[in-house]
């Protein structure tokens, strides 16, 4: 039953409204308008030629770095949505918990000098603690906040998830204070590589490569292990999976743990890139990563990765490419505008995403 309802939500329902052409007109205006801004802005920027190739390269690199963080977060959304049909609203805050716990390890290691003397061990320690914390919190969230709503329809689970998100944020605020803390900035992260005269910041390389490794491991777990197979079975059809003898509870806990682990890694990387942690840091990346998950096709793991990278790129390159060209002052302030517009356009016009079409059809 739940599958049918969720499947329905995935299908665009605009066709049923076709009698009311006024709505269609406005929606078409929206599409054309956004497309016009994108194309016009691109042409304008390219004609103006205000940015050099090196600057574009920097933007793309930053976009890929940001995108790999979004992709890691989006994986958690997509997997949980796959098995539970629930938007885990608190997922961004689970990422925040990873960043925070990583911060305490990183700053104490930085204080003792270990962070600079043996970077690999230090990174491993930071990531391990962050992953453990995020996993624990994700599993506890599932146990105490989501499990009671397993069979509830309607808005209750989502509202509870919003509550959990606030509870986590404010708990961290109460525990560790409302101030923004700056993340340690060791030397080995700050310098860069020179490739063909272009400067690639080292932290970008570290983040992107480690994120890709993490995603590969996740993909192997989901595709090759018994638990991963069970997970895919549950997300295909929970009742049938249960009848085949799969312990659905165990699978759900496993899903949350995996998603939490990815969020923990994402949290550490996000803190590496932006060099700060605070209690509200998880909210915006969380919402954007949800957009990335939908963009890739919710429930699809490669889709989430793709969507994450795409969103990161658009967010990083977009202000310069689209908005500068049409003469908007200070386009970087509107970075979030681009990300949220993309999110809404996806939800309205392509709720089944890029890779989700096959799945959505099957569920209908």
């Amino acid at each position, binding site marked *: 039953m739940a599958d049918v309802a969720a499947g*329905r*939500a995935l299908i*665009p*329902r*605009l066709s*049923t*409204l076709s009698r*009311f052409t006024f*709505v269609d007109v*406005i*929606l078409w205006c*929206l599409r054309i308008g956004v497309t016009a801004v994108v194309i016009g802005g691109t042409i304008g920027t390219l004609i103006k030629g205000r940015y050099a190739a090196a600057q574009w390269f920097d933007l793309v690199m930053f976009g890929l770095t940001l995108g790999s963080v979004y992709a890691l977060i989006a994986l958690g959304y997509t997997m949980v949505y796959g098995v539970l049909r629930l*938007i885990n609203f608190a997922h961004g805050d689970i990422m925040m918990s990873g960043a925070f716990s990583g911060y305490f390890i990183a700053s104490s290691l930085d204080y003792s000098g270990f962070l600079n003397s043996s970077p690999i061990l230090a990174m491993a320690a930071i990531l391990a603690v962050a992953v453990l914390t995020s996993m*624990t*919190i994700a599993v*506890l969230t599932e146990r*105490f906040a989501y499990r*009671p*709503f397993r069979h509830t329809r309607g*808005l*209750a*689970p*989502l*509202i*509870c998830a*919003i*509550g*959990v*998100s*606030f*509870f986590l*944020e*404010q*708990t961290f*605020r*109460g*525990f*560790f*204070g*409302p101030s923004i803390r700056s993340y340690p900035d060791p030397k080995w992260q700050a310098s860069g590589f020179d490739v063909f005269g272009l400067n690639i910041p080292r932290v970008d390389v570290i983040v992107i490569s480690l994120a890709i490794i993490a995603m590969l491991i996740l993909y192997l777990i989901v595709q090759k292990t018994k638990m991963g197979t069970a997970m895919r079975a549950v997300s295909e059809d929970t009742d049938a999976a249960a009848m085949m003898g799969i312990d659905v509870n165990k699978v759900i806990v496993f899903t949350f743990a995996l998603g939490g682990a990815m969020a923990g890694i994402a949290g550490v990387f996000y803190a590496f890139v932006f060099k700060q942690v605070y209690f509200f840091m998880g*909210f915006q990346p969380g*919402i954007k990563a*949800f*957009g990335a998950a*939908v963009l890739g096709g919710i429930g699809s793991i490669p889709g989430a990765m793709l969507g994450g990278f795409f969103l990161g790129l658009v967010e990083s390159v977009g202000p310069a490419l689209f908005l500068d060209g049409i003469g*908007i*002052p*200070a*386009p970087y*302030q*509107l970075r*979030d*505008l681009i990300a*949220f*517009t993309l*999110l*809404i356009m996806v*939800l*309205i016009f392509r*709720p089944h995403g890029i890779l989700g079409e096959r799945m959505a059809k099957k569920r209908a």
Partner: protein
Amino acid sequence: MTVATTSHAMWRKRARSPYHRAIITGLVFGVIAVYLAVVGILPMINARAVIVDLLTMAQAALLAIGLGAGAFISRSERELPTGTVMVHSLITGAIAGALVALLVLAMNAIDLRSIFISLSPQTSDMLTLELDLEYAAPMLVAAGAVLGALGVLLARSPARVRKPVLIGCMAVLFFGVFQELIQIMMQFSDAITTVRDLIYTWEGLTPEGAAVIFVVATGASVLSTRKPPAASGAPSWWQTRNGVLVKAAIAIVLLILLPILAGSYIGQVLMLVGLYILMGMGLNLEVGLAGLLDLGFVAFFAVGAYTTALLTADSPHSLAAIAGFPHLNFWMAMPIAVMISVVVGVLFGIPVLGVRGDYLAVATMGLGEIVRVIVQSDAAAPLLAGAQGILQIPKPVLAGMELADPVELFFLTLVCAAVAAYFAWRLESSRLGRAWMAVRDDEDVAQALGINLVKVKLLAYGLGAAFAGLSGSIFAVMLTSIYPSSFQLLVSINVLALIIVGGMGSLPGVVVGSLALVGLPELLREFGEYRYLFYGVALIVMMRIRPEGLWPSATRRRELHDFAGELEVEEPPPAVVAEIAAHAEHRPGE
């Protein structure tokens, strides 16, 4: 966190032990106490005395946790004899106390303050009652055990003992915690001032005063229960139409008198409550009636506020200065602001018409964030002033008198809220309201029954936005300057939380929710920074325990329970009861 995991593990291991329930309950209540200490709530409320030099609010909270643990175990082991439960409660209380003791020991062994900012030496002193460590730990365990046992005693005592005692304690708590306000209200006549001097000193409730209040409240409660109970089923006089009218009149008189007596601070708090009631009624149309979970609701509030500001402000950022528009006063600007909010609401609704459920929540949240990003950006700054905000918005002038005082503005809000409530109430039982409910329950069936989804949904967005726009308009003149930072997503969540706590789809619920979630944290000023924690917990707990809200609408109540008489709500505001009664009378005729 670790403690909570252990409790789960232990539950598995000891599922057959007769003590397992006692142990889990003890761990849960202990974790609650430790959490409150670490998150900083206990250290914060420790500054507020219930009884001067005798009991702080933090100590009261710890006592309540101990008693609550006992009461809980007594309830969950209802079938066992009191003696056994007593033994169990001793274990429960001791475990809860032991967890607190462990926290104290840990705090003294290592410096946790560099990580957990609340774990200062003062917190430790508060938990140990400034005893030495070697006495404090056993004391906490013993105190927990004793409180647990007392909790069982209280829970198992007959209702005619338990109820008056609880009411007495509540009264003492109320008079102690809100002593500042009550003292201000009591200084108006000499006779009352004498009473005040009897129970209060300038810094709070005296022990003698507390005793007096306890005795009076307990006595009153005993006397009131001794009256022969009305035959169940037959409504008492208060529930008849006349009784309801009298109650409504009393409530209105109280609402008018309260801010006059209590001064401008209360006026300000009530005004804020009023603004949230207005917004709550709007969101209630969308979420409660039409089932459209809108997390971008703050956008309409912002539209109302910015329209009013642009039309009336005496600053370079106003339409008068930019476009040579005539300078409007508040009374002209307000309807325009409401109308523009409706237009924005409809425009906002069109793109998300085809989006449902969870996706709708995220899409609307994205739309709300877009509005905020635009308002904040430099790109829109020539018109909307960016992060600097629009300043010098004049106060409304009525018959030559400027409504500058919070109390006067509160009356303005009250009138607006009353008018809006009338509209909301009429909408609820109208054809449109019923169409909304049908859409909420099942969109496809509603459409099959001939409801025009597009029209109905857009009307929900537009009318909901009207309420928020009105609220925003008053908000602008209340502050006389507006900044984009006032229109965060948090406002949307705030409004959502209050209608959920009050009861989705219920007008009185909106009032109850606003009083509880906006008024209460505002009165306990230091609580302010924890209000969002409180909202988060409220959302989770309400969804788990009471999804219909504190004051559900009649329909919801009927849906969720087979009989309506089950609810016990303390002293409902009469105006609201009148509405329900009138509503109920309307129904059969429809």
